[in-house]
């Protein structure tokens, strides 16, 4: 399935884009998605294990993705 991964702040700057499109197997986990991102050219400036949000909640590596999920990788947060 196709997953659009939202990028923000320093990650968006590092990749020069606000999102990445990836193909992963149906039901892929967050960990598999991160492997897919690492395999992509130009992603070397991202950390190996960024925070991931799925449908606007923090997600653990073993969480399975479904078609249509809103997925984002998040730099260390710095609000306040």
């Amino acid at each position, binding site marked *: 399935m196709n997953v659009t991964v*939202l990028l*923000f*702040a*320093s990650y968006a*700057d590092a990749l020069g884009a606000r999102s990445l499109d990836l193909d992963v197997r149906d039901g892929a986990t967050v960990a598999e998605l991160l492997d897919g991102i690492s395999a992509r050219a130009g992603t070397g400036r991202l950390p190996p294990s960024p*925070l991931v*949000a799925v449908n*606007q*909640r*923090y997600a*653990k590596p073993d969480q399975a993705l479904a078609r249509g999920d*809103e997925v*984002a990788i*998040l*730099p*260390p*947060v*710095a*609000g*306040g």
Partner: protein
Amino acid sequence: MRAALRHEPLRPAALLEEVSSVSAGATVLFVGTVRDVNEGRAVTGIEYSAYEAMALAEMARITEEARSHFGVERLVLEHRVGTLALGDASVVIAVAHAHRAPALDAARYVIEELKRRVPVWKREHYADGTREWVDPANAAEPAGHVP
């Protein structure tokens, strides 16, 4: 109980008024502001950006947790996004409760959880013309890590 992200200046005194009540014996206001020095560097301003939908959702979850943990029914949390000048408020928490301990505990809980969990980022502008994204893991007062 409400949470908001604002693209225009925050108004701390208005939020203080908003939560005030004759049923409250204690009202607490916390205001985070842009300061002139961070980690020893002269700062001239900060750009705040957010994953807005998730930031709002997370802020709403935090205010709901504060209600559940401390019994506060009157709490407002607002965070600014955009480019802020020195002294501008980046975050305001206003909370009122019959007693002082839950009001103070709730204010502290909300600012700590916000710094730990809410997807907001800041890029500091320095007096030497450079700009840098802030990673709280490198700071003297770290924000912690999620999850």
